[in-house]
């Protein structure tokens, strides 16, 4: 699971959960993969992101580095910044661990890099 994917996941579908976002990450295995850098893609993805959630997710697995907590201006011309965002979104993968609902504490396991957001029958 890439941090870009994590940015799109919520537990709002659970009964009684209001926002369910962002999901906490407790990672037991994280790996880094090389992905071709596409600055245009990063620029177009940034408006679709919840920036604060990306920062907290990166921080929780020790990958925040010097990424600014506030989205800077004029990102299109800031290659250094875009490369950092590319790395975080596309090259950092959580292989195993848990995602945690911020309201109920319900754990959603990640195995083989795939988050399991299915509920048990007694939870539906």
């Amino acid at each position, binding site marked *: 699971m890439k941090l870009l994917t994590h940015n*799109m996941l*919520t537990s709002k579908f659970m009964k009684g959960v209001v926002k369910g*976002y962002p999901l906490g990450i407790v990672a037991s295995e994280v790996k880094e993969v090389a992905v071709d850098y*596409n600055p245009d*893609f990063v620029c177009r993805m940034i408006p679709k992101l919840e920036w604060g959630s990306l920062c907290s997710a990166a921080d929780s697995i020790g990958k925040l580095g010097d990424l600014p907590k506030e989205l800077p201006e004029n990102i299109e011309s800031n290659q250094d910044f875009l490369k950092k965002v590319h790395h975080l979104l596309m090259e950092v993968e959580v292989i195993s661990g848990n995602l945690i609902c911020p309201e109920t504490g319900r754990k959603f396991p990640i195995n083989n890099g*795939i*988050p399991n*957001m299915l*509920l048990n029958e007694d939870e539906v």
Partner: protein
Amino acid sequence: MIPTPKLSHLTSEDYNDVYEPAEDTFLLMDALEADIELIKKLRPSLCLEVGSGSGAVITFLANVLGNSALYLCTDVNMRAAFTSLKTGLANSVDVQPVLTDLVSCLESRLQEKVDILLFNPPYVVTPSDEVGGRGIEASWAGGTNGREVTDRLLPLIGKLLSRTGLFYLVIIKENIQDEIEEEMRRQGLHMAVVLSRRSGPEQLRVLRFSRASDPVPVH
């Protein structure tokens, strides 16, 4: 012609639990190929396949569009999600599977963000009690009119699609196309039939839905 993704990494054991690409799968790929110039013009950055199974279709799309988009896919079948991941890797593309019911865990974050949405649903008419499993039967069992699963996703489409987003849906004749068109019209979405094909007893179609009656963007 765009090549079909490599699937030689999949074994008969995989196909015990995961739907093997068949005529419906290939018709959806053919429809995407027929529309590929349109799809490229829209410059999609977020693509989502619901119920990706083997992962052949989302991998096909990723092969064509390259690293200019995020390719999310969902399934309720654990083995299918893993197979989708493997199919992406075998074809050197990044596919991001999530185990979830339809779009449950993505719906609230993807409002008006999905550029290409794909669904080859369980469309076979079956008794209703065959619907709702998490094994291979979830890939075909569609309940009454073969629509029970499709009908849970359709009401969400208008909210998920981006301004120029496209939704591709596979149906068979028994699914009652007119009713689907009417439901989508209520959400302000226009329908077009991209391809039709007869395969044994199945009269398959791929439908495309968009906000504009002519989905070509204005530049």
